[in-house]
């Protein structure tokens, strides 16, 4: 399923097309034989199975249901694992590229993701069936009436209300929230594992690894902090002539004009 919501270049026309397609799908359900002819009381309960099925399918295929779900799309679950790390950036390497002993942990994580994905599917099913049931109950013995576009749109609004209510009831449950976190954690763990493999290879080629660059950054930051503290302390200290160095220091920049002050008075050049 093409998903405009996870794309860097968002295309509202594509999103609209997808939503319109789903609206038509829904209308098709409403026009099934069970919905009855104009003027007759339709048997809404006959639509429940079809509505729930459609809805469940959308929940499963839609990546818009959350980044963690996307990340947790395990092999065989439809989306394929190629998209698995899309939420956290591309995987540097496949699990198969890692040394044998390291690869095992990656495959274990993939298996764990598949297991969590299966658990998630049961929630989608629960939400879909509950939403369909809510819809059927609210429609009750409503008569069909002459089909109009406005009527169809009202029906759609009702359906969305039911869907959101069912969704909200389920996704607030503690066990669902825990599953969400487990999915996110497992996909992040897999990504970290993959990057670890990449580091091994990078080291073999004598290239700086991500961890080394990060360590360097941490040192730089520490130095910047120390420099700022020293500058601050120097500025706070009242100027005192040092007898021992008074003569030698002649001609040097006075201590009362620290570099930071001079810099802050000057508007820095904005980045391009």
């Amino acid at each position, binding site marked *: 399923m093409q998903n405009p919501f996870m794309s860097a270049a968002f295309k509202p026309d594509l999103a609209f097309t997808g939503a319109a397609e789903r609206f038509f799908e829904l209308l098709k359900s*409403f026009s099934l034989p069970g919905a009855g002819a104009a003027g007759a009381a339709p048997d809404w309960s006959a639509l429940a199975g079809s509505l729930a099925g459609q809805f469940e399918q959308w929940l499963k295929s839609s990546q818009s249901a959350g980044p963690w779900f996307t990340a947790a799309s395990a092999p065989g679950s439809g989306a394929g694992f190629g998209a698995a790390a899309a*939420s*956290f950036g591309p995987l540097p390497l496949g699990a198969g590229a890692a040394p044998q002993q390291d690869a095992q942990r990656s495959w274990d994580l993939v298996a764990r993701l598949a297991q969590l994905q299966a658990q998630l599917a049961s929630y989608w099913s629960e939400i879909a069936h509950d939403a369909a049931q809510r819809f059927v109950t609210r429609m009750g013995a409503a008569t069909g009436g002459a*089909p109009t*576009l406005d009527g169809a749109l009202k029906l759609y609004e009702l359906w969305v209300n039911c869907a959101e209510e069912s969704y909200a009831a389920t996704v607030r449950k503690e066990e669902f929230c825990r599953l969400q976190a487990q999915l*996110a954690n497992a996909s992040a763990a897999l*990504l970290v594992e993959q990057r670890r493999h990449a580091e091994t290879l990078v080291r073999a080629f004598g290239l700086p690894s991500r961890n080394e660059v990060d360590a360097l950054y941490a040192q730089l930051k520490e130095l910047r902090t120390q420099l700022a503290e020293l500058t601050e302390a120097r500025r706070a200290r009242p100027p005192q002539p040092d007898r021992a160095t008074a003569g030698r220091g002649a001609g040097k920049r006075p201590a009362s004009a620290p570099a930071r002050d001079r810099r*802050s008075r000057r508007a*820095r050049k*904005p980045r391009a």
Partner: protein
Amino acid sequence: MRPFAADASFLAGAAGAFVPELTLRVADTLARLRQARDVTVGCSAKRAVWSFGKTTLYEYLPLREAARDAPQRSAARPLLICFALVNRPYVLDLQPDRSLVRRLLAAGLSVYLIDWGDPDDADRCLDLEDYVERHLGGCVRHILVSRGTSSLDLLGVCQGGVLSLCYTALHRREVANLVTLTTPVDFHTPDNLLSKWVRELDTELLRQSGNVPGEALNGLFLALMPFRLTQQKYVRLLAGNSDQRALEDFVRMERWIFDSPPQAAVALAEFVRWFYQENRLIRGTLRIGGKRVDLAAIVQPVLNLYALGDHIVPPGASAAMERCLGSRDYTGCGIDTGHIGMYASRKGADEIPSRIISWLRERP
């Protein structure tokens, strides 16, 4: 796109009666959406005056009509807008008739805005201390020095409001008045779905797995109400008789909603852990740069505006601010709209600038 009208089984059904009309509306809306694809965003003139890393501080140029009142403007205390890290700030200046910035400028205020930019892999270790003390703090210090003033007014929006609260608590002399918009303080209110979802995230793994793309966060926000946010709002375009201008407004908002910058790994992990998981801000256990962030230390006037129908920052999460601050001059106000509506709706565009301007005028 599948050909709707060519579906014979559907056309044969009872709903088939209005299919030709519906098909026409779909085609018309689609064509107009494509026309509107290249709408521009941002309308007020501004200039970059300072930068640090990926962060840029902008100063908005006064409007022509406000410039006539130049002496008053130059004497006014500058107002710095601190937006969230997770979205772009141009939503505050989206288009002339829906621009908080423009309204503030028209009122003669001197407006500055922080754009956090796009953190890349070199910024993955940026932490909240960096953002609060060096980026936000750098902007504040630059404005104070360049304007020759000892304090400014700070307007924090959403997550930017949280950063603004932290900064104000840590540097109370530099902030004269604080305005917060849709700013959470209590992250553990029962209706906070986002908080429930991230409660058991492993933030150490989050930190290790690198910067988080903006699309991933968008997906998370959409998942809070997936049918309304990814389906219903588009189908609703079929219902109204919206003109091209209304459609362009819609596309502008869409562009903003889906235009999210990546998040620096460490700062995001800290934000999730300290705020969403441990609720440190309201518990008084938050420390930034080794210093305790004590909300009771905020004694200056505070205006807190929040949305009553907010699904991202529930009203209770923001209204809790009242009982934590040390300020005796606190004004809290719930606006009857949603999170996005605070910036984009007609109601938000009318009510919010008016409230901010009149509140600031009463506190010169």
